[in-house]
């Protein structure tokens, strides 16, 4: 199982722990990667607001780089996944558009033929690695922990571009939460928006959205939250204190990136998973993991 890894901007910038934790677990799950080091930003839906064809060309460029390697693309960011799934569908569906965009790539001698698939790590683990293999790798079951899945928008909607989870009733994160021995928290906010795209310019609105989702998860008994999107992570973690003030509650809910949750169960050290980068401390989770590890050492 080999992929062209598209890290995206956040994992190379403000959430370095996502990149770190991904690299710490994929080998053991049998996922080999070649990183697309010359890939650009996917545009995050923002570039397209000003320049839709430019945003498509950025993504076609990335797809062409993967196609040249003969590999499908693996993303580790829900937003990248959504933007790239949509771009890929558009490019594949419209030969004239593909031709126009390819002309923009000529100076770099790149061409995209439309033969690449783009898959998020979450999907690769659920569908290709498989839950059985994941369970084989679990060394510390996270039993007694209740973990709230937070999908984020772009990995679910529009569902006809993503084609993986049911957008009304997704369950891929729940499957992984169960596979590591924890219990998923069911709550309405898990498919809602974290507010991140407008958090810099409309902080009040974004914090109200973010705070409501965190609060609902907490009230559902969550000990932690897990998300496949680093932009959601920034909103849920970095802005959590401000969100708590906005919704007038005490949150202190540790938020894990998907590969961090898997890594903790696979016995990878907290240091390797980069949890020290979080603004909301993960200590309460590490304590449970530490206790479980001691127990399994004794037995």
């Amino acid at each position: 199982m080999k992929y062209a890894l598209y890290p995206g901007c956040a994992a190379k910038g403000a959430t370095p722990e996502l990149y770190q934790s991904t690299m710490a677990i994929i080998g053991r799950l049998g996922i080999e990667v070649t990183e697309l080091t010359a890939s650009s930003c996917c545009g995050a839906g923002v570039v397209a607001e000003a320049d839709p064809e430019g945003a498509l060309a950025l993504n076609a460029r990335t797809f062409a780089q993967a196609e040249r390697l003969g590999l499908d693309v693996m993303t580790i960011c829900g937003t990248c996944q959504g933007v790239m799934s949509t771009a890929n569908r558009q490019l594949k569906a419209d030969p004239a558009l593909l031709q126009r965009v390819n002309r923009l790539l000529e100076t770099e001698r790149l061409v995209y033929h439309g033969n690449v698939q783009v898959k998020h790590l979450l999907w690769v683990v659920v569908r290709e690695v498989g839950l059985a293999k994941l369970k084989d790798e679990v060394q510390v079951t996270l039993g007694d922990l209740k973990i709230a899945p937070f999908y984020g928008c772009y990995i679910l909607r529009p569902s006809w571009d993503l084609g993986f989870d049911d957008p009304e009733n997704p369950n891929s994160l729940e499957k992984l939460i169960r596979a590591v021995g924890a219990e998923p928290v069911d709550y309405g906010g898990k498919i809602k928006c974290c507010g991140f795209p407008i958090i810099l310019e409309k902080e009040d609105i974004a914090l109200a959205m973010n705070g409501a989702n965190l609060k609902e998860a907490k009230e559902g008994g969550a000990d932690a939250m897990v998300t496949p999107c680093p932009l959601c992570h920034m909103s849920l973690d970095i802005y959590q204190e401000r969100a708590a003030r906005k919704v007038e509650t005490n949150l202190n809910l540790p938020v894990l990136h998907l590969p961090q949750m898997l890594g903790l169960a696979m016995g990878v050290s907290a240091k390797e998973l980069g949890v020290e980068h979080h603004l909301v401390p993960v200590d309460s989770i590490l304590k449970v993991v530490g206790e479980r590890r001691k127990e399994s050492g004794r037995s």
Partner: protein
Amino acid sequence: MRLAFTIRRYHPELDAAPHEETYRLDVTRGMTVLDALIRIKNEEDGRLTFRYSCRSAICGSCAMTINGAEKLACRTSVRKEWERHGGITIEPLRHLPVLKDLAVDMCSFWGKVRAIEPWVQADHLTPTGPLSLPAGSAQFHNVDACIMCGACVAACTVHEVDQGFLGPAALAKAYRFVADPREDSAARTARLAALQGPTGMWDCTRCNFCVEVCPKDVKPMEAIIRLRRAAIQAGMTDTGGARHVVGFRDLIARFGRLNEALMPLKVVGPSLRRLLHVLPLGLRMLLKGKVPNPLHPPIEGVRHVRALLERTRR
């Protein structure tokens, strides 16, 4: 097959609070949720209140929350819902005042559609002149297929926390007139300018809920994005939202990737007050190793990225 339908009931004159009631019904082949509601009203409880008219997904009256998502009852298959969710719960549209049971007050919805002045403003066209659209010129991107059912507004995650937000339906409608070639350019500019402030086009988070639930494939969010593009092209770049878009594109052209150390500064713009607001969080991120080096070298091949963005910009 006999199935259970759980319906949120609320009679404001009799009930202290909304409550759920469950009805069991023999389900027939091809039955829609609206068929089921009509049967329940006729056979079980004549007081059950819901709106409907055409039964054919044209009038937009019967939008409601079915198994947690906004749908037209008349084109939602009972069997498919059951297969998808293992049950059927029916609630009124969210974040709109409930009048009774499944009927909500749509006044705020209509008020917002009226607020965007949903008519062509074209003083230069004489009443006797050609009022029809020039052939093949209009590109409304299916926005005029909207049946005003309100599903998008009920599903909107911004409307959930700020009911003042104009919302997807009204903003999509505004785009339809911005895109109309008959509209006066001064009127078009005024229309765009009126949507720059709070509750306007820059409040949308692009969560895609409206696109997902729209029964007519209007894709309201995409219309909002087109409104934003039109505003930027018209030179309206003095909002946080516009600075975000323009600044983001500039950073990609410069580095190939987003530099999160510089992005907030682009959005903040020339305002000390806004800078002081983002700074404390920036410092905490810095201490946690979350602020990338602002002098980070660009990606390999960045000149090609820059060149292609230059070409598509024109």
